[in-house]
């Protein structure tokens, strides 16, 4: 028994849980060594920049941007619905439509410029032949008073700079589309906006997830001498938006955003003393605009940075950032601003330390792509004036075993 009693003592003694972490009493009772944080701006880090356009067309975007009519920054939305039927079902029989009571059109408002007075959406009748081959100027004849179908006043209370979802509804009289039969029961409309100040609204599309437009027809037919009402709805067959052409970017600049959307590829050189012998704790791109950001007045562009799995030019596959870093790798840029754009790229640079084979290239894009004609144009290493740079805060490796990025 004594032996087992002693065993118990030993077990208790050597099995005690350790509790070691204690507050340091510095400097006397702390190790001399401390991690040092350094911060540097690498002015010549961007060595080769390229940009390519054509990633997302306007008719494939998740939103349509409509900007003020009569200003330089101007865009119009175009929507064509699937054809309506030329007859309705009464009981088990098809009956021809005898009269159209009305049309109801619903559009989804995503966001717009706030604090604008007199903002209204003007709805025009368009030829059903409209398609992506048209240009902004081709629409001019159809955005006249003679084609005006309705005006929808937008109260400021429904507008927000951030994405939301609200409906704009208007009801048109039966004869609103006099060529409906000749057009194969197809309806196409165009939307422009007008306000006392420059403004814009973003509308939902069939590609987006926040709600697309819809058309409902209220019609009558005759059933054995009795008038019968029927309603029929159609979703969008085609929608897009057209913007007034903007001037081309300077030849030594890179562009991103716009329609079709453009992406920029920034290739960087970062000294090995930082990439291989330190832990990067924060990295920020300092992007110098070549000219003020283009776009709808009052709008902001969401600029996002991505790392690449491999760099093989415009079709390089980018890496989706982890969910907890998505917000950190994005920045909002106000239209008209020429201030330096600061965007966090820590989540891109730190993997370069763990995997030296990764291309040291950063992809920049305006998101959602193709949903705005806004465009950011950045100075490059070829530009004569101030150039973009990267600011890195890092901790040099202190222990020979290395760090954990």
């Amino acid at each position, binding site marked *: 028994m004594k032996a087992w009693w002693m065993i118990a003592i030993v077990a208790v003694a050597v099995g005690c849980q350790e509790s070691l*972490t204690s507050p*340091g*009493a510095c400097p006397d009772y702390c190790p*001399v*060594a401390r991690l040092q*944080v350094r911060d540097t701006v690498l002015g010549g880090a961007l060595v080769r920049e390229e940009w390519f356009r054509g990633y997302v067309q306007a008719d494939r975007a998740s939103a349509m941007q409509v900007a003020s009519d009569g200003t330089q920054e101007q865009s119009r939305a175009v929507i064509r619905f699937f054809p309506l039927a030329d007859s309705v079902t009464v009981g088990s029989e098809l009956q021809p439509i005898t009269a159209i009571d009305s049309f109801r059109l619903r559009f989804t408002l995503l966001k717009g410029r706030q604090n604008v007075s007199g903002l209204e959406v003007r709805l025009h009748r368009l030829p059903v032949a409209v398609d992506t081959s048209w240009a902004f100027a081709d629409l001019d004849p159809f955005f006249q008073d003679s084609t005006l179908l309705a005006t929808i006043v937008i109260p400021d209370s429904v507008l927000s700079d951030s994405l939301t979802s609200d409906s704009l509804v208007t009801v048109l009289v039966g004869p609103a589309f006099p060529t409906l039969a000749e057009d194969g029961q197809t309806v196409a409309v165009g939307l422009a906006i007008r306000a006392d100040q420059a403004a814009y609204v973003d509308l939902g599309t069939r590609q987006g997830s926040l709600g697309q437009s819809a058309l409902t027809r209220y019609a009558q037919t005759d059933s054995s001498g009795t008038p019968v009402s029927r309603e029929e709805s159609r979703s969008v067959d085609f929608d897009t938006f057209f913007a007034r052409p903007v001037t081309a970017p300077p030849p030594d600049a890179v562009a991103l955003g716009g329609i079709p959307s453009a992406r920029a590829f920034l290739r960087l050189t970062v000294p090995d003393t930082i990439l291989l012998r330190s832990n990067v704790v924060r990295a920020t791109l300092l992007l110098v605009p070549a000219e003020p950001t283009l776009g709808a007045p009052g709008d902001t562009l969401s600029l996002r940075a991505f790392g690449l799995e491999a760099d093989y030019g415009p079709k390089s596959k980018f890496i989706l950032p982890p969910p907890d870093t998505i917000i950190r790798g994005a920045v909002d840029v106000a239209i008209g601003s020429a201030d330096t754009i600061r965007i966090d790229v820590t989540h891109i640079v730190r993997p370069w330390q763990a995997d030296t084979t990764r291309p040291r290239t950063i992809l920049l894009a305006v998101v959602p792509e193709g949903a705005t004609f806004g465009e950011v144009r950045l100075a490059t290493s070829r530009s004569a004036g101030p150039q973009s740079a990267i600011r890195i*805060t890092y901790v040099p*490796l*202190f*222990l020979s075993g290395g760090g954990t990025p």
Partner: protein
Amino acid sequence: MIWRTGAALAFLTVAIGQPLTAQASVYGVLGVGFPGRAVSVRARALGGGLDALDPRSAVNPAAIAFNGRLTVSGTTETTSRWYEVSGVAAEGLRDTRFPVAMIAGQIQTSPISFGVSYALYAERSFDIQTTDTVTLRGTDVLVTDRVRSDGGITDVRFGLAWALSERVQLGGAFHLLSGSTREQLQRDFDSPDYASVTQRGDVDYSGTGVSVGVMVTPSRRFRFGLAARRDGRLDVSDPLLPVPELQLPWTLTAGWTYAPVRVVRWSASASWRSWGGADVDPSAGLTDQVFDTWEVGTGIEIGGSDVGASRVPLRVGFRYAQLPFSPTADRAREIDFSAGTALSFAANRAIIDAAIERAIRDGGGAVERAWQLSLGLTIRP
């Protein structure tokens, strides 16, 4: 039954105790670490009074001669402590380590005995957390730093002892100083803009030393021993210790044991170490003050199976030791009050020793108190 018990104890002592090394003292942050004690549990219970004469301690190589037959021993030590430095207090600190192990025995029937031992020469285990404010990109950011070091400098001794006669024994040993520490530096920023950093590294130590000793037993009730040890330069590749090389000290130890009656033994030892000549270059960044140190201890043992009195001896001791490193001109010191006992089995073929110590450490702006429970297992197959 006895052997199964012994096997179980050996397993618990070695398998559980061995992987754990931890901070022995707040003073372990200083210099090359907190000085280890290459002594057995019995010597601990006697306040270190037996250091110069104990065959199960790795101090005097001449004492190896008293391991008449093959002896395997090991110890484990659990510490519970608190400290206070400049208003910073930490309590509830607990750790367990494995400070000494030895195998020794006579080479057949020759007068020569051998002994191989492992002991902690200096312990560099600590885990310290501090907070500070640094200015980053023009903004003050609160940071939390954690510095961890786990391990220390170990002393592996290869010793031989020669029994010239029953009254005189000589010994010599070669010491291989090695060991490593696993170090980790961590910094967390109190800002989502900055990512946390963790850096790890392994640090190795290497050095050598030699020691000689003599033990003389002029009468049946009196024995004394002398030992001298010279350690060389310690190569350090430790970023946390910004000196690449450090001259280790001379150690001179003397002690005696006296038995006024058969069942009572009084022992006392003293050691001097020339840490003051550690030859540290202040420009290298090691700002600690370094002192020569004295260590004296004494203890009384009553009874014990080896004198045929009882299976359970009673041991008490007192020890005073100066510590070599201090952040100030105030030299740090330690006072230990100790007590202990032992149980022997199978005609002394298995011995379990136990000791408890109350350590009182002061100086250099720090105050520390600790309870230390040591258990040792000795097997003589």
